[in-house]
């Protein structure tokens, strides 16, 4: 994927030179290994800072919300689906954005990589499906495919679903991916065990809202947890309030979440809150045959109805 960067720069430069867009949103190299930082280029010269590699896990659709300019944006499969959702939900206009599509073979799970070493990682380079990781206790060459973010390992839409130009040829989608093995495992638990599972899952949460704020879907002007009249949920570290936040946020994302993994990636405590959003994603497929962000012309399942909707639940 590193090879895309020249094409990304070329497209971005052209868009800015020709005045097609006022800014291009992409990534620049961060100060830590495996961390790239979202950034913008407003002049062709700024484009020189752009990078593209397997550490661009942040969903850039989050940076488009309610912007008024004409914007170029680099989009992986998941970003593009969030952009479709943004357009459908009137958070940005299609004609306002120029999507530079970046077919994606998955982003790296930096926490997993860090856990393979006794000491801090000093540098990470990538080459042809391999990562060369140098830590204080030595260098290892690792297979990228084994170290994907959890959501990337089960990704079913690696290519951008909308794009104005592609930075590379589309990649082959993963076949026979079982997206919901982990969800099914929890579904089969007896209630008490499920309860314990979620108690444990959220026990480390510090209510910093990094998951919410990294999520392109969480754009409410005032989040329900921040409302005070009425106050829906307490603001302390009471475990019930913490879980209420996570459960309700997940429901607000039902039928909209594209499992881009930004929430989990952002969490400073390593919580996999995707276990909630994935369950709802699965329910949407089971109940409505719906996968979000694939089609600009379809309304999401929770803001539409069909005359032939089954209504067996009405007794």
């Amino acid at each position: 994927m590193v090879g895309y960067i020249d094409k990304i720069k070329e497209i971005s430069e052209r868009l800015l030179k020709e005045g097609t867009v006022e800014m291009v949103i992409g990534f620049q190299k961060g100060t830590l290994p495996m961390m790239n930082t979202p950034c913008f280029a407003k002049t062709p010269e700024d484009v020189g800072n752009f990078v593209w590699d397997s550490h661009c896990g942040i969903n850039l659709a989050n940076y488009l919300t309610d912007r008024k300019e004409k914007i170029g944006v680099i989009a992986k499969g998941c970003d593009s689906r969030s952009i479709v959702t943004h357009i459908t939900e009137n958070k940005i206009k299609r004609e306002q954005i120029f999507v530079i599509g970046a077919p994606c073979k998955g982003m790296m799970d930096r926490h997993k990589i860090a856990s393979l070493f006794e000491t801090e990682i000093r540098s990470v380079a990538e080459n042809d499906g391999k990562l060369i990781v140098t830590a204080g206790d030595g260098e290892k060459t690792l297979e990228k495919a084994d170290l994907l973010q959890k959501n990337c390992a089960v990704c079913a839409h690696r290519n951008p679903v909308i794009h104005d130009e592609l930075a590379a040829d589309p990649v082959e989608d993963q076949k026979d991916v079982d997206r919901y093995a982990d969800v099914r495992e929890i579904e089969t638990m007896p209630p008490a065990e499920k309860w314990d599972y979620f108690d444990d899952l959220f026990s480390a949460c510090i209510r910093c809202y990094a998951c919410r704020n990294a999520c392109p879907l969480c754009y409410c002007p005032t989040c329900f947890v921040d409302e005070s009249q009425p106050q829906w949920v307490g603001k302390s570290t009471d475990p019930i309030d913490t879980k209420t936040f996570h459960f309700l946020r997940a429901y607000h994302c039902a039928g909209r979440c594209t499992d881009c993994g930004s929430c989990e990636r952002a969490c400073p405590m390593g919580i996999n809150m995707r276990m909630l959003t994935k369950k709802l994603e699965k329910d949407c497929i089971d109940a409505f045959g719906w996968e979000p962000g694939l089609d600009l012309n379809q309304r999401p399942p929770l803001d539409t109805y069909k005359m032939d909707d089954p209504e067996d639940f009405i007794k």
Partner: protein
Amino acid sequence: MKVIKIDKKDWADSLGKLSGPYRLFGPVRDKDFHNFKELGNDEQPDFNFQNTRVSAKSMVLPQSETLFTYSLDEKEPDHHQMREPEKNYSPRAVLGIRPCDAKAFLLVKRNFDTPEYKDPYWVRAYEASTFVGLACDDPCSTCFCTSAGCGPFHEEGLDLLLVDAGDHFLAKVLTQKGKNLVQAAGWGVETNADVELMKRTAESRIASAISTEQLKGKAATDLYHAPFWEEAAFACINCGTCTYSCPTCWCFDIQDENHGNAGVRMRNWDSCMYPLFTLHGSGHNPRETKIHRVRQRFMHKLKYYLDKYDAGIQCVGCGRCIRLCPVNIDIRNICELMNSHDPGACTCQVA
């Protein structure tokens, strides 16, 4: 200053002795990281860590703390009156705190404990605490303590400094509180060992530094209007990770919570990164955009605090905000932008 030798094989026994006169707190591994917790009976602090995931500030300023309780039941004689809840301010020992986190309490103290105002909850918890530091000989690449008024063997804010010396600890007694703890633990073997060389070696391992010498001389308004904030703030998602993990961020919000007729008035950590932080009752928000909020965080740490107290920046260089920021906003870069800002050289329009 007295240096005492503590054999590691005697460590568990000493903690047993300390657990009578002190409530013991220490770093404990939970899942993939360490954080400070109250230690259970016979529970040992786990010193096999670089630093705790979030800082030790919750030892004195818990994330949620009850300030008062009250009843709305008019049958009760003291209904609608705030009652101070009973709290345990018996002596506590915080074992294995890193020097950066201990120094941070002194920075925070300037806010909570002044001749004019004293925050009783903070002051009582602080005064009840004996801080047993653990010197750092394996710093993270993001540690820049030595250029932030602190260091891996820094002593300010500690009562006792432990240095890991293989099969034993060397303990430097720094205050009367430290002396009392040493006595209670039954540690008495004095040694001539010198930790100075170990200290210098540890300091040389700190590979990262910031420059702050120009900050004081700059006009706050010049920095406030500097052109770099839009770009610096762009990636920020306005979560509370940096402020919640920071040992020197002290802001809190006060909330009343009722359950039926019973209520508590509590305070919870707050974050200047949140839009709600400055939202006025009128609906006006003086820090409406994330650029305002990001600027506020760094101006407070690196300029306003410096100007107000003339005692350095409000940062001890622990590097947690760098390691944990979901989008890698790096205080070292922002500090450099501020420290090297030349308002005269700026020809661009400022909003």
